[in-house]
């Protein structure tokens, strides 16, 4: 068959294909396919950015990479591979984070079109804002297993990436994790916290020791004295020091850490008798006296390449625990003075550590044990990925791009890929693009958002890291209090407001009804934050972001409580903690390793198309992504 695109594509379109400049963000699963498709469609001028390096688990689909490339820059290698095919193409590769200050609005303005092939929400949010600021059309894409989606974003014309709120991550009550786990996932979350406590960044929300304020345990007053006593003696006063300090002082001695975590802390939990009246009490483990558990006789273990699917015995868990502890310690030592490790599901010692610790804890609490393969899935929030889905989505991406370049952006669609043809026999479901949400706190005329929090306990640091950067997606915010005096709360200039960080919001006069003016110069984005003071939030959340103030008022009157009452507290006063996964690990790009890696997809970008709007050509089986 003939190959030429003459005739099939109109002359003017061919011209713009030959001359326009494109930006591809992400050189992972979709990115590799996309770069190949672009070069073979005749695009000559492509810039490519990705922060990630190549991992073995990429090779089953990211076909521009080979075994010998493992560890190298995805962007660089993808560029080389594509150039081999068309040496005349002008491809620029950046091994960098798209969220860096070098890639401002002027950078984005150089392109006719931006194509996202990303795997995380933070980078997607950021590119969304940059494209809105630069007024450049953006094609967004994602895959998860057999499912996929492509959509087009254009300022003023369509919904932006953040027009609809995204569901938040699943969370578990703190006491369940620390005191009374009942499912394997509880033990896995605990083990990841233990990893972070020992090797990672300190996060008080990830405490792994018994929670003495468990309301269930605190029931009988007589215990309280015993508890505080026990805390001193059994837990060795560890609660006072960080687990990290204690581990360092004990030289990361496996036996000591094992006996503290799996014997002493469990004994301590046993002393909280109320917890065990209705539950089967945990059984502490002793390093020198491990039970002989029969191994699960799963025969699939003999099949090649899948020995990770066998469940380990307790003795095996203990020896893997000791071994991986040592390896992680070595990694930590090698990382320099105040170095920390970031938990990575593809890092062998880190995964072994979590698998063994989670299973030891599961055994103690009579919870079924899990294989390393399963733990990896559950702990790593692994999104299955295959070549076929990426190929399909990248093909669709280019077709949408061609529509934009031929001036037919109004004909663009959001296209959902189903796992199999739906009852109406459609594998693809194209939907008309939605109009912008007039109340969107990103793309509306006057972006505004309301945040509920306790102004008498929250620090400026938490406000900046967790709310303004973490939840609201800014990267370099300047924050001013709208108090008529123009008090600067946070400055993007290094060191300028360092002194404010540890202070409480109320010290600056921030109270119920206060208004903060935020400005992110990189994203060219201004946002007003209305503060609603609450004493305590449902499920002990630290804060709550409410996009639509009208919605909030309706809700408040329904609750029959004013927004500033302190009766918002839920019956269930467990403290919730977010189960972290990749997307939250990258919310603070300045500190974390990954920012715009592009392995495949971001399940949490799931946009629930709950109410199917009239625009859709289909009324069922819409893939959510």
């Amino acid at each position, binding site marked *: 068959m003939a190959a030429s695109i003459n005739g099939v594509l109109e002359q003017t379109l061919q011209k713009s294909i030959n001359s326009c400049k494109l930006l591809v963000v992400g050189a992972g699963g979709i990115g590799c396919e996309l770069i190949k498709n672009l070069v073979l469609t005749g695009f000559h001028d492509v810039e490519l950015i990705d922060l990630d390096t190549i991992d073995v688990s990429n090779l089953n689909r990211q076909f521009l990479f080979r075994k010998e490339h493992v560890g190298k820059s995805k962007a660089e290698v993808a560029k080389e591979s594509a150039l081999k095919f068309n040496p005349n193409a002008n491809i620029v590769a950046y091994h960098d984070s798209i969220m860096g200050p070098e890639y401002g609005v002027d950078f984005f303005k150089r392109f006719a079109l931006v194509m996202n092939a990303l795997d995380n929400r933070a980078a997607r949010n950021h590119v969304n804002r940059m494209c809105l600021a630069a007024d450049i059309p953006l094609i967004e894409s994602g895959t998860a297993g057999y499912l996929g989606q492509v959509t087009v974003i254009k300022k003023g014309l369509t919904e932006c990436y953040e027009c609809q709120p995204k569901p938040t991550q699943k969370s578990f009550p703190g006491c369940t994790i620390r005191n009374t786990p009942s499912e394997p996932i509880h033990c896995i979350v605990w083990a990841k916290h233990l990893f972070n406590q020992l090797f990672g960044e300190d996060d008080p929300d990830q405490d792994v020791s018994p929670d003495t304020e468990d309301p269930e345990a605190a029931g009988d007053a007589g215990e309280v004295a015993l508890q505080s006593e026990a805390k001193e003696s059994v837990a060795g006063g560890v609660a006072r020091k960080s687990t990290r300090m204690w581990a360092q002082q004990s030289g990361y001695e496996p036996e000591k850490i094992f006996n503290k975590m799996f014997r002493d802390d469990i004994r301590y939990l046993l002393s909280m008798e109320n917890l065990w009246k209705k539950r089967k009490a945990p059984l502490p483990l002793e390093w020198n006296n491990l039970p002989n558990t029969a191994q699960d006789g799963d025969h699939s273990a003999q099949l090649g390449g899948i020995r990770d699917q066998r469940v380990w015995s307790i003795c095996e868990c203990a020896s893997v625990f000791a071994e991986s502890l040592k390896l992680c310690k070595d990694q930590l030592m090698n990382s320099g003075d105040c170095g920390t490790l970031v938990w990575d599901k593809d890092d062998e010692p880190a995964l072994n550590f979590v698998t063994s610790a989670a299973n030891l804890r599961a055994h103690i609490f009579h919870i079924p044990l899990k294989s390393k393969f399963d733990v990896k899935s559950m702990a790593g929030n692994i999104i299955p990925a295959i070549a076929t889905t990426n190929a399909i989505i990248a093909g669709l991406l280019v077709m949408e791009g061609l529509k934009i370049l031929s001036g037919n952006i109004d004909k663009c669609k959001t296209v959902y890929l189903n796992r199999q043809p739906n009852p109406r026999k*459609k594998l*693809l479901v194209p939907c008309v693009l939605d109009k912008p949400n007039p109340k969107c706190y990103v793309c509306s005329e006057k972006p505004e958002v309301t945040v509920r929090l306790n102004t008498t306990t929250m620090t400026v640091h938490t406000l900046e890291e967790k709310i303004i950067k973490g939840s609201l997606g800014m990267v370099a915010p300047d924050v001013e209090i709208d108090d008529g005096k123009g008090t600067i709360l946070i400055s993007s200039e290094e060191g300028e407001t360092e002194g404010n960080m540890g202070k409480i919001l109320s010290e600056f006069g921030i109270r119920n009804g206060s208004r903060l003016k935020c400005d992110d110069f990189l994203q060219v984005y201004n946002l007003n934050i209305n503060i609603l003071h609450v004493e305590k939030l449902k499920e002990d959340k630290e804060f709550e972001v409410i996009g639509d103030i009208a919605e909030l008022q309706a809700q408040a009157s329904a609750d029959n409580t004013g927004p500033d009452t302190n009766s918002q507290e839920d019956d269930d006063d467990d403290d919730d903690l977010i189960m972290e996964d990749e997307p939250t690990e990258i919310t603070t790009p300045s500190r974390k390793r990954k920012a715009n890696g592009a392995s495949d997809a971001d399940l949490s970008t799931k946009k629930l198309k709950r109410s199917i709007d009239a625009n859709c050509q289909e009324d069922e089986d819409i893939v959510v992504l």
Partner: protein
Amino acid sequence: MESGPAEKSKKYDRQLRLWGDHGQAALESAKVCLVNATATGTEILKNIILPGIGSFTIVDAHKVSGEDIGNNFFLEKDTIGKSRAQVATELLLELNEDVNGDFIEETVDNLLRNNSGFFQNFHMVIVTDLPERTLVTLAAQLWESDTPLLVCRSYGLIGYMRMVLKEHTVVESHPDNAIEDLRLDHPFRTLTEYCNAQNMAEMTKKEHSHTPWLVIIYKFLEDWKKHNGEMPRNYKEKSKLKEMIREGILKNQDLVPEDEENFDEAIRNVNSTLVPTKSKPFWILARAVKEFVQNEGQGRLPVRGSIPDMTADSERYIQLQNIYKEQALQDIAIVTNYVHQLLQTLGRPQDNISDSDIKTFCKNASFLQLIRCRSLAQEYDPATANHADIAMHLEDTDDDDLVFYILLRAVDRFYSQYSKYPGCYGDSMEADIPKLKACVSKLLQDWGITQNVKDDYVHEFCRYGASELHSVAAYMGGVAAQEVIKVITHQFIPINNTYIYNAMKQSSITVQM
């Protein structure tokens, strides 16, 4: 150099989570054949080589042309004039060191003539860009030997795929919304005993609100049956049962109902749990399951053995889980017995069917699938063609993608007559339009269809000039490779039998031709 098991499981980690190690093993032992290393063909191969197909063979007598290198990633510029089969094989092999590949520089016609058993050696044959006459001959032979065939092409802005499976069985169909297998309509003994031992009247508030909904529905169903004899059948009766359950929610001193999530779950699950337990049978395993159904199962399939998540204390949740698990194991043991008996009668060793296969089969007993596609011969013979459906689609709306099926068949007819595709050479465009129109009319006439195809489509197809756009080829490469994997792993339900993609509208349809 092949990679070791540990590295393999790392490399394939993200896909093992979709089809499991047994699916991977099936893939790694499969041999496929690709006819013609077109862009569409090599894209399909790429997508099955990356996940680790066992081996591939490319059959292609063409030499690499200038047009080829413009749209095919696996043919480089300096290879013009060389064997297309060879060049593509070499480049494709670089994708995965665990895959074997070879090539034959030969036409399909010659192979069919001189080496008649050749194509039957493969688990699947994938065909691109083959003239109709040769395709029909090849398809007939593959149909005879029960070898799966996949035909795929990218033509301008249209993609086409045809699956030809004489008989294909699927054990793990991975249904999208499976109804749970809970047997509340026919509770087995241990389940009855367990539920009867639960005394909701004497429970504390916490116990009451953490009683699994399974138990709640069981209790209220028993109540219902006492009064009405039978299970609730229609909407009205089911609503009544839901009302009864709602009444069962604990009330506080002020007679306001408590917040009991498990009762809400019970009410939500009434409809799906009352779907009667049904069965669907097949082969040695199917026969064994049939024996089970007729005897021990008293007309019902083996219990699947899993329960969904529900609000419950872990103690009772685990107890219930075990009750279902135990029952499933018992049922599997009985089926295993039948399997062994059958194997013995057939004079085959007992390990002919593994325990894990029996287990998987029993667990999927209600999702088993048998797919029988129509043959290509049936489709291409005007007497047995599916003209009723074609007419219906033409009638349906003016923009139905099925029209592209007719045009693809018409360009093939054009090729048979003129040995080239319409509009292939710029200057012939005008002359080709009426010729292609005639082919379309002739086809419709053969099928006895009176409606016609709009001229716009004929013009557009002439404009395509049989060109293969890379993005369309890449898209079809993804879709087709996914179907190949489904067939080889016997997981998920393959498309039956024709798929058409319209890149202008980003729409697609599936039809049975």
